[in-house]
């Protein structure tokens, strides 16, 4: 049996871990609440922008899906992973999902988040660009990522979806299709804005281009936000499990400590008794 002092030391260390997991758990839960609000606000903004965009009388062929950008003939997978660890196994599941579809002959990988980049390197899979995941409680500037994926024919985004605090899943979207889905959710505009009654500066086409760019950015930023939400929820779960395990260990160690203490007391008592008996025997013999 271990000595009581050693057990006490271990218990104190586990209690520190328990305190830390509590802090991480609270942080993750606060972050989840904060990001959920931002996702809702961002959707409202998108709807408002969409209602103005649809009111503009621009050529349908030139709209978002029309593209008109250069095409390098390849596909790109964009992986949105966590920047830090301690988020359970969700990133591992994400990378496994990507690798099931991945064909290096036709597809390039762009990865967001050092955790995902690390997981890819461990599996010997290369990527063309890596981006840090911006802090999700500030505006997500996805401009550099959009610039990188612009020449590709198909853009598939792999990210972690928040279903509930207890459940997160891996989701795959085609970025263009995502905008179309978002636009279906947005109320359709009944108003018509044309050059006949409206002044456009610099021009209607330039304004429509900027709006399309903004909606593409927003769709992507929302995927990053939702990924952050899922990662925080996964982190919350991992921390809750770690906290529970730490609490179990503390009560196990406390029990062991008391047993060890009692065993030590019993041993000392036995030694005293033996010593007393020995003295008594010596006295009797004398």
């Amino acid at each position, binding site marked *: 049996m271990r000595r009581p002092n050693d057990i006490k030391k271990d218990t104190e260390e586990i209690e520190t871990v328990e305190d830390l997991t509590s802090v991480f758990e609270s942080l993750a839960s606060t972050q989840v609440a904060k990001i959920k609000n931002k996702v809702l606000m961002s959707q409202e903004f998108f709807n*408002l922008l969409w209602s103005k965009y649809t009111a503009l009388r621009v050529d349908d062929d030139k709209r978002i899906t029309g593209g008109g950008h250069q095409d390098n003939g390849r596909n790109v997978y964009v992986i949105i992973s966590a920047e830090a660890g301690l988020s359970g196994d969700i990133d591992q599941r994400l990378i496994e999902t990507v690798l099931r579809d991945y064909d290096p002959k036709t597809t390039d990988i762009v990865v967001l988040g050092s955790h995902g980049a690390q997981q890819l390197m461990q599996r010997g899979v290369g990527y063309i660009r890596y981006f840090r995941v911006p802090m999700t409680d500030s505006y997500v500037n996805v401009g550099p990522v959009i610039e990188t994926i612009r020449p590709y024919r198909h853009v598939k985004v792999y990210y972690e979806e928040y279903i509930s605090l207890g459940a997160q899943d891996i989701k795959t979207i085609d970025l263009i299709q995502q905008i179309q889905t978002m636009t279906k959710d947005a109320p359709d505009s009944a108003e018509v804005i044309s050059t006949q009654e409206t002044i456009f500066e610099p021009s209607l086409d330039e304004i429509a281009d900027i709006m399309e760019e*903004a909606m593409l950015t927003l769709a992507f930023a929302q995927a990053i936000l939702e990924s952050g939400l899922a990662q925080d929820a996964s982190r919350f779960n991992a921390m809750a499990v770690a906290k529970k395990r730490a609490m179990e260990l503390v009560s196990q160690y406390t029990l062991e400590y008391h047993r060890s203490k009692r065993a030590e007391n019993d041993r000392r008592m036995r030694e005293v008794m033996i010593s007393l008996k020995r003295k008594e025997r010596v006295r009797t013999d004398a």
Partner: protein
Amino acid sequence: MNQNQLLKVQARAPFEIYYQGDAYSVTATNKVGTFDILPGHADYFSIIDPNSEVIIGTEKEDINISASNGIVCVRDDEVLLFLNI
């Protein structure tokens, strides 16, 4: 001031609402220069100059917003400012 002489303004970014309510003017800058929107302004769409300032004049105070980019839409005295997109 008469209610009819006020603009209905919404200034927002994807994750933030800067201002929502009545105002008597909106000042911003585009390629052409600085412009004011007052009640009765013609329907208008414009791209706001990068890193410029938007000023919303309300009865209480002027609200200054730094915009890294944005779009302004004016229609029937309603002003929508999509900022920092």
